[in-house]
């Protein structure tokens, strides 16, 4: 399989299909990241489309000092920020969640609460910490890529991630609804089938 670097060279030599392959490789990551930011599929689609077109036009500026993925992400992030500067980031509150499920078993209800509480607590984190957490856990990026995207030293990216995780831990441990969190049962949200539930409305 050709590397990003090789595909970029091909695009620069005039092979447009190589850019199609680059999109294929990075589109899902990019779309999910932007949807996470905008919480709207149509908006994210527009942003991602625009970001790909911009990246094609600017490909001659790509010097390979960072990974293509983090360079692309930076373009998408700026595109989103420019287009939707007024967009207020929506935090998901527990009160907005569909908890009216009388037949739910207790553990499932607890898990639903946990998910809502976690989302709310993540939304409260300082932006840099939230970004590091999201890029690491949701997008599975390395700290090197996170540092490139956040334009900060490697250790700073890692420190932001650690602070985020420990702040969440502290807040969850202090939450009376989550006493099961540090005790038993230690179930998994996924095992409880929460993936199938429409939590976000």
């Amino acid at each position, binding site marked *: 399989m050709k590397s990003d*670097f090789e595909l*970029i*060279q091909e695009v*620069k030599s*005039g092979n*447009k299909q190589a*850019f*199609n392959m680059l*999109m*294929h490789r990075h*589109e*899902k990551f990019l*779309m*999910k990241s932007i*949807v*996470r930011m905008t*919480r709207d*599929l149509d908006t*994210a*689609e527009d942003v*991602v*489309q625009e970001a*790909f*077109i911009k990246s*094609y*036009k600017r*490909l*001659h500026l*790509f*010097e*390979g000092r960072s990974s293509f993925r983090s360079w692309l992400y930076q373009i998408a992030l700026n595109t989103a920020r420019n287009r939707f500067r007024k967009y207020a980031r929506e935090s*998901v509150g527990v009160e907005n969640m569909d908890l009216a499920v009388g037949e739910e078993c207790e553990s499932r209800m607890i898990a639903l609460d*946990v*998910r809502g509480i*976690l*989302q709310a607590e*993540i939304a409260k984190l300082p932006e840099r910490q939230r970004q590091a*957490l999201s890029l690491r*856990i*949701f997008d599975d990026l390395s*700290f090197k890529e996170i540092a490139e995207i956040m334009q900060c030293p490697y250790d700073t990216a*890692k420190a932001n*991630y*650690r602070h985020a*995780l*420990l702040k*969440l*831990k502290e807040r*969850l441990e202090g939450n009376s609804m989550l006493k099961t*969190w*540090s005790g038993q049962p*230690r179930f*998994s*949200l*996924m095992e409880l089938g*929460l*993936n*199938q539930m429409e*939590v*976000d409305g």
Partner: protein
Amino acid sequence: MEDSRKETEWWWIDFLENELEPGLEADLELLLEHSQEDRDSFESIRLLKQWVGESDPVGDWPVDARLDRIRRKVMQAIDHEIQEPLATNSLRT
């Protein structure tokens, strides 16, 4: 005391992320083997990371359905609207 606890938690995070300095790994493995408190501490961080991952607010959003259309539109733009996309550019990288 608080600083010491925080430092230990940072180590556990690094351990979880495979980011630990090589010399420390064996020490932490020993702690895991012999200390229930440290096992609990590490487990709570591991579990937290897992739960955060499972709580992705858009984890199950149908993004895949949009991807073909995005790619198609971008390729159309490249083919028709961008006349000489990389003209004058060198092959520098």
